[in-house]
């Protein structure tokens, strides 16, 4: 298997996902199967080939900097699970 259980735990942590013990086993097997399939790509000679960074022939898109309508605070907060005084509320991140 390309990925073991420990690697699955590390990836899950990076992605801020919580997995059950059973899911760790399952994901290790499933992700390994997918990765071994996509490994076929290594057969393709890409020496000196630039990666696609954008599919369209555009670089910078500019327009006049004119003030326009923007989202009022109360609408921007309308879907917030918790809010106070015009702000999003998050759990405490600093110890007292």
């Amino acid at each position, binding site marked *: 298997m390309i990925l073991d259980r420990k690697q699955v735990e590390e990836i899950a942590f990076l992605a801020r*996902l919580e997995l059950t013990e059973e899911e760790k086993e399952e994901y290790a097997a499933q992700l390994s199967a997918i990765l071994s399939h996509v490994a076929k790509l290594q057969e393709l000679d890409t020496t000196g080939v630039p990666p696609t960074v954008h599919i369209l022939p555009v670089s910078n898109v500019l327009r006049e900097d004119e003030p326009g309508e923007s989202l009022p605070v109360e609408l921007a907060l309308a*879907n917030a699970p918790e809010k106070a005084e015009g702000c999003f509320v998050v759990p405490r991140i600093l110890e007292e």
Partner: protein
Amino acid sequence: MELWKLPAHSLHKLLVGGEVTAQEITSAFLQRLREVEPQLQAFITVTEELALEQAQEIDRRREKGEELPPLAGIPFALKDNISVRGIPTTCGSKMLENYIPVYDATIYKRLREAGSVLVGKTNMDEFAMGSSTEFSAFHVTRNPWNLERVPGGSSGGSAAAIAAGAANFALGTDTGGSIRQPAAFCGIVGIKPTYGRVSRYGVIPFASSLDQAGPMARTVTDAALVLNVISGHDQRDSTALKEPVPDYTSYLVPDVAGLKIGVPKEYFGEGIAPEVGAAIWEGIRLLEKLGARVEEFSLQTASHCLSAYYIIAPAEASSNLACYDGIRYGYRADVDDLLGMYTKSRRVLGSEVRRRIMLGTYALSAGYYDAYYHKAQQARTLIRQEFKEAFEKYDVLITPTTPNVAFALGAMVDDLLAMYLSDVCTLAANLAGLPAISLPCGFSQGMPIGMQILGKPFAEGKILQVAYTFEQETEYHKEFPPVSKGVM
């Protein structure tokens, strides 16, 4: 007269001629919707009241003598990842079950300006990740041609609704085939426009360099009318190019004389059901008889598209879906510490979504980036290059839309690679940013078969013309599904 069976251009004539009202049209579709919805479960939200209000407004405009645009009073459905202010937009996910957008997607706004009437938001695989709509967090949608089979995905709700006549047209989104594959499975027309043709503002992202919204309809003409409305630059989406938007209906001319069709051999090889391959070839021969020139050729990169796609799409998704952290919108678990709040909130994401986030996170992580993501983006350059060369020789390319007809419900949920392979014919258009259309071209096992026509960037007109020519010569699009259990 069954109004729900009529194409938009016929309904328009009846409406402006004063033979029916917009409210009668909307009521007819809503009645059909109520009739088929218990079997199909194509919708997440039905907006009946809103639809009747919008239809009433069209009737008032007509009474005042206003000239109505072609899609005014025509009922449509939106895939549930397209934002509508004040209407739940769930993306098929528990994460967004209670999310109510505070702004409209540009494409919805444009359809409203054109006077179309919203009947509901359709079911989809969670965050558009899937090929059967079975990964919706809410319910399974069934195929109107056979209720024991999947409608395809991820725009499966839109496809099933249009095939059954619950709305005249719908919008779907297509990241690797999510408009064309369900269109093929349900026997309708679906267009993935050129990347940059249609604004993505207000469309909840899956993989931003591949996503594109497009029309799903019963006829090529109706699809062209919808494309006319949704195409064009948007100040709110800098990737929606300023390229001029032609009147796509001007391409609806039955003429393929001298047209050069390229047929890539790799799309007819291993894994393609013989009946499907035969139906596509029969279609190609028909176009040849009508004056097109046909040539087989080889697309060397074809076998690498699936691999490149299953690195690039999850990588972009893992980054896009990082916003579901329980803070600004979406589900939030009641936990006191920040890290715990993130991980517990993200537990509501379904297994396929989490799997793809994991895959993408891995492909982008230090030490693996070069082997996976960088390599896949290099492959993408080669894929684009090969298509560019092909279009120097051919006007359009024709392939099957899917390797087989719609599969049975539950048949592939445990075999992910097999499920991913059902998109093998459609992925290249997303990777290369090309426009592609799927249209009905036959039946096998009582299920529709879809033919895919690909064009150069911004050559939507050309693929519409070829599709229209084929449609005028065939009867497949005239069939209506039984909305009952078939013989398996």
